[in-house]
């Protein structure tokens, strides 16, 4: 009984391939007639390569016929083959991906063979030659093969490249799908992904403009589109091979226990995002700088100009907020941990609130200095990379370079210290770090134009634009007084909480 069923299945499978062959054949006949009529209209000779390359490069048969079948084969193999029994037998997910690729090709190769066979079968009765025909050389209006005739010397080479491209693209498609399934392990999302790929390839060759053609999967299935889309076909190849390498690296990472790495990365995530944001600002400013006039110190000035009551621009205001209030926020995160979670145990250990305070506050101060030096160095290095003048002149402000550096580092340090101390007071008083956010918002308000006119409110004073109106030493004085006052307040609060 099972033998009969097996036999029937075999016949059916074969029957399926025959049907596919017939469909390709009839579609090919249509194409062949089209080429014949076009060629005879212009009185041009054709040869067999025109017919076979035309069939292989026809976008409609690829998108509406080959791609769906390939997706179907790929999806059935991935879905039926991924189970724990197989995984246990194979040992690693990596091996499973390769196995599924092998199984995929054992089926898809038949499809490709049929396609190639049909492309040759249709050439019966067409004169054969190893060279390009008149028709493809003339390359006039019909846009049958596009620029293929110009890029490749012989049609046979083009044929090989077409085949190679198709194999590479389909392999990448399957590897992508199998990796996608291995990663999410959800059947429905996987099927939706298949549908998206199909729709993407249908939409891709119709809607995407030339510049974005590399986003469409269809570009990589036919040589004609491939050559049309990229100015240098090599770039397209680099894209494909790059994808291949990325997928391969991902395959290598598949079996590693990611949770461990993820945990260790997670703790650096806030600082990482913060540094990326800081760098983004510096890079965007140095790109917009004028290489013939601006120097590397100008990048520093323009980046950290901030704002004061007289001169205000949203970009520099937001960048100031990101850099300095962002740092305050990050330190606030640590303070919240210090106060809410481990504070009481540590206070018992240090026996003295002030000792406890300095035990972690010292580290923050070092962090701030390190960070300011880092930012300064970054802005100078990026400025040099972009190709700005490497001397110590400052063209955007009429101030010496040492004043700039003094202001940036000393006043910056004092200013951030003030922010941290005030955030600490709020967090300590409320025993809840979230209220630090209100304070940061109020600081931001105080930096808006027209509010801090005398420069006596110790907020945003390290903006480099302040050098236009105030001497840096006056600003240092203001910040020092503010810091001392707020430190005395903290001391007072500490003694008060001892009495309670």
């Amino acid at each position, binding site marked *: 009984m099972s033998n009969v069923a097996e036999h029937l299945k075999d016949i059916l499978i074969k029957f399926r391939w025959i049907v596919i062959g017939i469909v390709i054949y009839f579609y090919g006949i249509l194409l062949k007639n089209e080429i014949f009529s076009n060629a005879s209209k212009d009185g041009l000779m054709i040869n067999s390569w025109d017919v076979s390359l035309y069939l292989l490069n026809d976008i409609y048969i690829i998108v509406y016929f080959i791609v769906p079948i390939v997706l179907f084969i790929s999806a059935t193999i991935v879905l039926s083959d991924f189970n724990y029994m197989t995984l246990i037998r194979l040992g690693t997910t990596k091996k499973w991906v390769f196995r599924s690729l092998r199984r995929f090709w054992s089926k898809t190769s038949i499809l490709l063979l049929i396609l190639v066979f049909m492309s040759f079968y249709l050439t019966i009765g067409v004169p054969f030659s190893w060279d390009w025909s008149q028709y493809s050389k003339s390359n006039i209006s019909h846009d049958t093969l596009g620029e293929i005739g110009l890029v490749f010397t012989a049609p046979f080479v083009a044929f090989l490249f077409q085949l190679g491209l198709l194999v590479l693209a389909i392999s990448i498609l399957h590897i992508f799908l199998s990796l996608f399934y291995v990663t999410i392990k959800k059947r429905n999302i996987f099927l939706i992904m298949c549908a998206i790929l199909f729709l993407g390839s249908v939409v891709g060759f119709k809607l995407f403009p030339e510049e974005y053609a590399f986003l469409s999967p269809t570009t990589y299935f036919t040589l004609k589109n491939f050559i049309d889309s990229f100015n240098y076909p090599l770039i397209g190849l680099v894209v494909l091979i790059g994808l291949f390498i990325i997928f391969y690296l991902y395959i290598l990472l598949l079996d590693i226990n990611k949770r461990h790495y993820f945990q260790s990365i997670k703790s650096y995530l806030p600082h990482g995002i913060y540094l990326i944001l800081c760098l983004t600002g510096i890079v965007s400013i140095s790109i917009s700088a004028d290489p013939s006039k601006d120097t590397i110190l100008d990048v520093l000035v323009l980046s950290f100009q901030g704002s004061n009551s007289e001169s205000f621009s949203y970009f520099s205001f937001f960048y100031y907020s990101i850099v300095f209030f962002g740092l305050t926020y990050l330190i606030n995160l640590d303070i919240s941990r210090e106060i809410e979670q481990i504070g009481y145990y540590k206070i018992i250990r240090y026996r003295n609130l002030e000792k406890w305070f300095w035990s972690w506050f010292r580290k923050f101060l070092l962090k701030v200095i390190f960070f300011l030096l880092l930012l300064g160095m970054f802005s100078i290095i990026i400025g040099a990379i972009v190709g700005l003048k490497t001397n110590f002149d400052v063209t955007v402000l009429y101030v010496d370079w040492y004043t700039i550096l003094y202001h940036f580092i000393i006043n910056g340090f004092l200013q951030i210290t003030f922010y941290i101390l005030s955030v600490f007071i709020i967090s300590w008083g409320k025993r809840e770090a979230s209220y630090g956010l209100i304070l*940061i*918002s109020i600081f931001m308000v105080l930096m808006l134009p027209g509010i801090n006119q005398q420069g006596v409110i110790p907020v945003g004073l390290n903006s480099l634009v302040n050098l236009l109106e105030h001497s840096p030493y006056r600003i240092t004085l203001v910040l020092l007084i503010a810091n001392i006052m707020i430190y005395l307040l903290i001391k007072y609060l500490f003694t008060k909480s001892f009495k309670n």
Partner: protein
Amino acid sequence: MISRQFLIEFKRSFTHKNLLKWLGIILLLPLISFLPVSTGYLYFQPVDVFQETVGFIIPMLFPVLVVFIYLPSFLQEQKNHFITYTRTRVPLNYYILVKGLMNALLTGFIILSMMFFTFIFVTFIEPNFIQIVDYSPPLPGDHEVNVTFSQFLEYGTWTYVLVYSLWVTLNAIVYSTISFLLMIILKKSFVAISVPFLFYHVFNFVSGVFGIAQFSPLSTVFPFNIEQQELWTVFVPLGILLLCISILYLIVIRNKEDWMI
């Protein structure tokens, strides 16, 4: 049961401290915001003053404001393990649901009242009783206020103020709901509370870097710093936020065991 719980929550949220805070937001904040812009600008009509007042200090405080209207009380309940003991009285998901609705309702109501009070103040109270603002006579020619949403001005000032206030209210509700949902699933409540704040300011900066300021949170909620944009642009950041809310909602209802209560 839900409606009863809702009533209880409603009564409980009206503490003296909260009332004082809310009155401060509704009455005091517009006044503080009004003072710096009251002189030194060229105004033709009260709606100009309204826009300048709303667009000055409030945008900087907005992401923190909406989060601190109601959520601190929820934070206290979390920290003091209060919610665990309400379970004898009411199912946990009802309790959380009511809290979420209450947060949305109160945040929305207070922001809306703040906007309306600002408008009523600059239109009725200030010209009649205080008179600091110096209105210039209308210029010859057609004077237009060119900011996003002033498209509605042609249907009348009240329509504009209503539509714009509802828009700010909607954003306030969305921002604070994101925080609320995060507070349920995140261990660090400080991070949960600061997410709207971070989103708002980081994306203001990022959109500035990439030159798409018309999609920045600041310029869509308080569109007074850039020229008039098409109305659809304001829905781009809101759409992103709504997507975030939907994803967060799914995460929240799927991980009932891991709720931070």
